């Protein structure tokens, strides 16, 4: 096909393109385009333009719209073009329509009919064009109109059509999963299509389906593996080769799918090991596409059940990425490192310098990726360095989106790993001061709660220290101009709660400061409200303590202003403050107890404390209370609405005829209960009696049968419906459900939080480099490897549950506590910095020794013996918690060790390692030290200390 054959552009159009290309400024370009729009508007509405001209106009419209101007006046002409008989014109029409319209545009309804017709065309090119449009334009409402046609096309003789039909179905599934859920089997069927292109297209929807529901596709593991095998063995037609790689895009898709299927599934993963290993070996790492496949392999390996050999190959590939000069590969390497670190934390050690290089790289993208990696490896020993770096970077950038993200990460890390209260408060201050308006208000509330509840240790002095250091730093910060609103809210709240708690500051000093805040930020209602409430708290504390309160004059002036404020909220707060000040000490203490922000307020919804009073009144002859649902005769608008709503939502239109009534009296009730059958069967005797009384009169006068029906149709029925409806019961049940939901949600987020938390761990040992970098490396990766182990882990193990639970924003209700217990059950691994998804999935009941054997298969007998010995010793020596802990995690440790061991003692495997020079150094020097090191390792374990990554001492010894 000659390159000039396809386009017929008039000189006019080419001139336009040219002049826009040459335009010097945006203004000039805009002027040209506006002129063009005028011309097009004039010409396009001309009733008889030749088709060819029209086609060009449409393309010019596309061009205009692409340049960011509004071309909606021409949309309808594009739609008209799709109706044309000539394929040439039709295609242009479809192209323009897909570019112009979004799926929710009003004009789409005009195209559906044309698409229907075109999908039935016997010219496959027409069908293809229509399918392209289907993928872009069809929305949830129009799917049913086209679904059967598209499904028929799955069996079309042309592969191009089948392929597009698959993609269209995939699109339908994305738009409205329910509409095509019965057709999912079609995807499986098409997986076996003769044409590799169709098979490849099927992988897209399957990937999505598997992401949603892994378990129902486990049976396909073998099929995917065998397809992947065939692809890597070059069984596909040569046409699918890309830069000498056999169908790399299909390989990548398959690897993605396998990663999902093998995640936490040992059996499925075992089937994949060979083929993934093959890809590692065959991949050409000199081409970009080869690296793309390699990267996907690493992702796959880090997702499926770990296999030491594959992990080794992955680590190898990562080190090649990181050592490359290409920034792209470095970026991918950092990303891959972040994935693999969850499984084998020790690999970060070899790359610490590469990581630091990336962190200091001028390239922002790379820097951010590295911060992400650091975020994943943060632990209590390196948190200060990492968070400081993050904050520095945060201050230096302008991109609000990323600023928000990095700020919330800082907060999260600080909350989890803060080494001291002082540091924590300072860090939070920095984050709030620089990104205060960007962080989620939730973060602010978390901070308040954290200050109120302390860090969870049952240590009141530490908590009060935290508070007073917070108060002090806030008083200091208040001197700065222009603080973010959220931060001011926190400050006001903390000053109100704890400003005078430690006695260092007088009430008048704190109130003075609060008044300053309210005055300085007079256009921020929320801050003012916080300040008033804080004032009220301080005065309440003073009154409760029996001291005389004298309001500062400025404070009084402020209150007067607020009493007349336009904001009702502020007004109310000010009046409340006034009222509180007038009360005596006893009353104040009961309405505003000091430091009670964390106490539960029990709400007695049944108002049982009034029972005595009611009893008295009834005895004196008062009428008993009738719940609203049981009262009759009164129409209530809200109930009406309720009723309507329920009818609409639960029934829509009713097509079945009403039952003919047998008895007049009974017939009254059924229509109502018909209207809301499943909703409320209220059968209170009293209600029935009452309704009889009110209704018998009309029923006596009305005829039976048909007139009865008519009556029901207008209005009367609603009256009846309302009564049976009993909104009270239904709403109460729904709210209770909501709370249940709320709790489960909270529970879920807790666990998911902890899940993300679980992996911050790795350590490095360093090789000699420039002193600065070395220092940074030391602080980030390994500097404190010795000190870190003992205090950190030893400190944490004894009470894992309380610690974490307190931190994870505990709220107290009986249900909550139960859920917390559940959460804390899963916590121990998180606390212990275990990034091992397999530990999670493998139930604790799994015999650790069995796992061990599985893992040790490739290693030498000696190694496994030693490992057995060490774990056994640890398990027997340490009682309850420790024992449990070692049992669940023994597998992982030993695997880490066995990695090293197999690397060291197995010559062929060692070759795999060869890529990394540092490891080679290790091997050459390991000789005599190895045994020593292992013994040390075992000894450390026996002492009950559990290293979080393979023992750093071991590494030190290995490296010499």
């Amino acid at each position, binding site marked *: *096909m000659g*390159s000039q*054959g*396809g*386009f017929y*552009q008039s000189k006019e159009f*080419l001139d336009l*393109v*040219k002049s826009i290309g040459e335009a010097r400024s945006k203004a000039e*370009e805009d002027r040209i385009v506006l002129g063009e729009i005028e011309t097009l508007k004039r010409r396009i509405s001309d009733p008889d333009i030749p088709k060819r001209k029209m086609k060009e106009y449409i*393309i010019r419209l596309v061009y205009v*719209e*692409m340049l*960011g101007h509004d071309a909606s006046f021409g949309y309808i002409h594009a739609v008209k073009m799709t109706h044309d*008989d*000539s*394929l*040439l014109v039709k*295609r*242009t029409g479809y*192209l323009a329509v897909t*570019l112009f319209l*979004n799926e929710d545009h009003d004009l789409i309804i005009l195209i559906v009919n044309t698409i229907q017709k075109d999908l039935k065309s016997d*010219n496959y*090119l027409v069908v*293809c064009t229509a399918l*392209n449009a289907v*993928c*872009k334009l069809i929305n949830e409402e129009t799917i049913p109109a086209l679904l059967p046609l598209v499904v028929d096309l799955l069996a079309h003789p042309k592969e191009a059509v089948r392929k*597009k039909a698959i*993609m269209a179905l*995939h*699109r339908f599934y*994305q738009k409205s999963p329910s509409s095509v859920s019965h057709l999912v089997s079609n995807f499986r069927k098409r997986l076996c299509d003769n044409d590799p*292109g169709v098979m*490849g*297209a099927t992988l*897209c929807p399957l990937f999505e389906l598997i992401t949603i529901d892994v378990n129902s596709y486990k049976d396909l593991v073998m099929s995917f593996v065998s397809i992947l095998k065939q692809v890597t063995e070059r069984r596909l037609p040569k*046409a*699918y080769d*890309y830069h000498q790689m056999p*169908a*790399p*895009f299909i390989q990548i898709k398959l690897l993605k799918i396998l990663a999902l299927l093998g995640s936490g599934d040992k059996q499925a993963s075992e089937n994949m090991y060979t083929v993934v290993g093959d890809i590692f070996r065959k991949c050409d790492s000199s081409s*970009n*596409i080869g690296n*793309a496949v390699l*990267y996907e392999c690493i*992702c796959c390996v880090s997702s499926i059940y770990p296999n030491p050999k594959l992990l080794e190959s992955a680590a190898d590939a990562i080190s090649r990425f990181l050592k490359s000069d*290409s*920034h*792209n590969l*470095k*970026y*991918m390497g950092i990303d891959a490192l972040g994935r693999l670190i969850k499984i084998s934390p020790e690999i970060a050690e070899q790359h610490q310098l590469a990581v630091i290089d990336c962190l200091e790289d*001028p*390239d922002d*993208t790379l820097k951010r990726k590295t911060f992400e990696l650091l975020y994943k490896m943060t632990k209590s020993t390196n948190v200060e360095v990492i968070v400081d770096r993050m904050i520095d970077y945060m201050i230096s950038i302008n991109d609000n*989106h*990323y600023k928000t993200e990095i700020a919330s990460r800082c907060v999260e890390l600080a909350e989890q790993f803060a080494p001291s209260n002082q540091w924590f408060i300072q860090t939070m201050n920095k984050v709030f001061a620089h990104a205060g308006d960007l962080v989620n208000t939730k973060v602010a509330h978390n901070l308040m709660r954290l200050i109120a509840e302390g860090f969870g240790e049952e240590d009141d002095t530490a908590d009060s220290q935290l508070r007073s250091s917070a108060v002090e730093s806030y008083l200091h910060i208040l001197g700065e101009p222009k603080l973010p609103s959220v931060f001011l809210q926190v400050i006001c709240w903390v000053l109100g709660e704890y400003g005078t708690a430690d006695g260092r500051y007088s009430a008048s000093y704190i109130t003075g400061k609060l008044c300053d805040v309210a005055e300085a930020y007079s256009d921020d209602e929320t801050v003012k409200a916080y300040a008033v409430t804080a004032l009220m708290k301080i005065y309440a504390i003073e009154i409760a303590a029996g001291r005389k309160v004298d309001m500062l004059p400025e404070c009084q002036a402020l209150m007067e202003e607020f009493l007349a404020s336009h904001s009702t909220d502020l007004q109310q707060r000010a009046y409340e403050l006034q009222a509180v000040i007038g009360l005596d000490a006893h009353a104040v203490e009961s309405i505003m107890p000091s430091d009670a922000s964390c106490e539960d307020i029990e709400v007695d919804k049944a108002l049982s404390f009034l029972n005595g009073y009611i009893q008295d009144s009834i005895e004196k002859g008062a009428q008993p209370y009738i719940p609203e649902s049981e009262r009759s005769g009164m129409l209530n608008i809200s109930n009406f609405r309720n009723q309507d709503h329920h009818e609409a939502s639960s029934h829509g239109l009713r097509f079945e005829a009403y039952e003919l009534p047998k008895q007049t009296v009974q017939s009254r009730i059924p229509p109502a209960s018909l209207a809301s059958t499943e909703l409320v069967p209220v059968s209170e005797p009293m209600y029935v009696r009452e309704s009889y009384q009110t209704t018998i009169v009309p029923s006596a006068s009305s005829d039976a049968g048909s007139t009865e029906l008519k009556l029901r149709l207008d209005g009367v029925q609603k009256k009846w419906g309302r009564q049976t409806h009993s909104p009270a019961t239904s709403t109460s049940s729904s709210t209770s459900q909501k709370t249940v939901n709320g709790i489960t949600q909270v529970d879920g987020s807790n666990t998911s939080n902890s899940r993300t938390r679980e992996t911050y761990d790795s350590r490095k040992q360093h090789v000699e480099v420039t002193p600065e970098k070395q220092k940074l490396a030391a602080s980030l990766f390994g500097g404190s490897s010795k000190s870190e182990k003992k205090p950190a882990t030893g400190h944490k193990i004894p009470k894992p549950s309380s610690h974490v639970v307190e931190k994870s924003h505990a709220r107290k209700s009986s249900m909550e506590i139960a859920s917390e217990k559940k959460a804390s059950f899963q916590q121990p691994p998180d606390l212990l910095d275990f990034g091992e998804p397999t530990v999670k999935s493998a139930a604790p009941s799994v015999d650790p020794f069995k796992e061990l054997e599985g893992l040790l298969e490739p290693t030498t007998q000696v190694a496994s013996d030693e490992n057995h010995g060490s774990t056994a010793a640890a398990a027997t020596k340490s009682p309850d918690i420790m024992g449990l802990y070692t049992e669940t995690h023994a597998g992982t440790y030993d695997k880490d060790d066995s990695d090293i061991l197999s690397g060291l003692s197995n010559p062929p495997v060692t070759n795999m390692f060869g890529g990394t020079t540092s490891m080679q150094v290790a091997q050459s020097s390991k000789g005599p030290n190895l045994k020593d090191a292992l013994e040390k390792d075992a000894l450390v374990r026996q002492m009950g200390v559990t290293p979080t990554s393979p023992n750093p001492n071991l590494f030190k010894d290995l490296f010499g």
Partner: protein
Amino acid sequence: MIHFVLLISRQGKVRLTKWYSTYSQKERTKVIRELSGVILTRGPKLCNFVEWRGLKVVYKRYASLYFCMCIDPDGNELEILEIIHHYVEVLDRYFGSVIELTSLIICRKAYYILDEILISGELQEPGKRTIVRAVAAQDSLVETVKEQTGSISTIIAQASK
């Protein structure tokens, strides 16, 4: 999934846009302005990826044209880079030389070819030859259709008038 494809010239002029996710006209203009600001100012040796509003944009420069694709944060960037290259190769094979594209890119063919490679934001055809064949088939059919309309159908149409 690919959210959109953008072709921007070195001067920041838009050459081709294709949106697979829903963006209003206003958002589109904003996206283009933001991204061209970010991408065109990046140095030559930096990575070809930009994190942007929680998504990732992969770009590559060919002659004076930047090809950009925006993907989900968990996508494989190197793969997208190759999809871009794949597209360029097909364009190259079809048009002869990419450099020429700067002026021709606005023509429909570039869109048709893109439609053969990507559909609803997913790669649909990895075989280069298949794509070229598909586009060529459309062209040749269009030619024949045109001839027919030039001869038989017009005659019939005129006769029936």
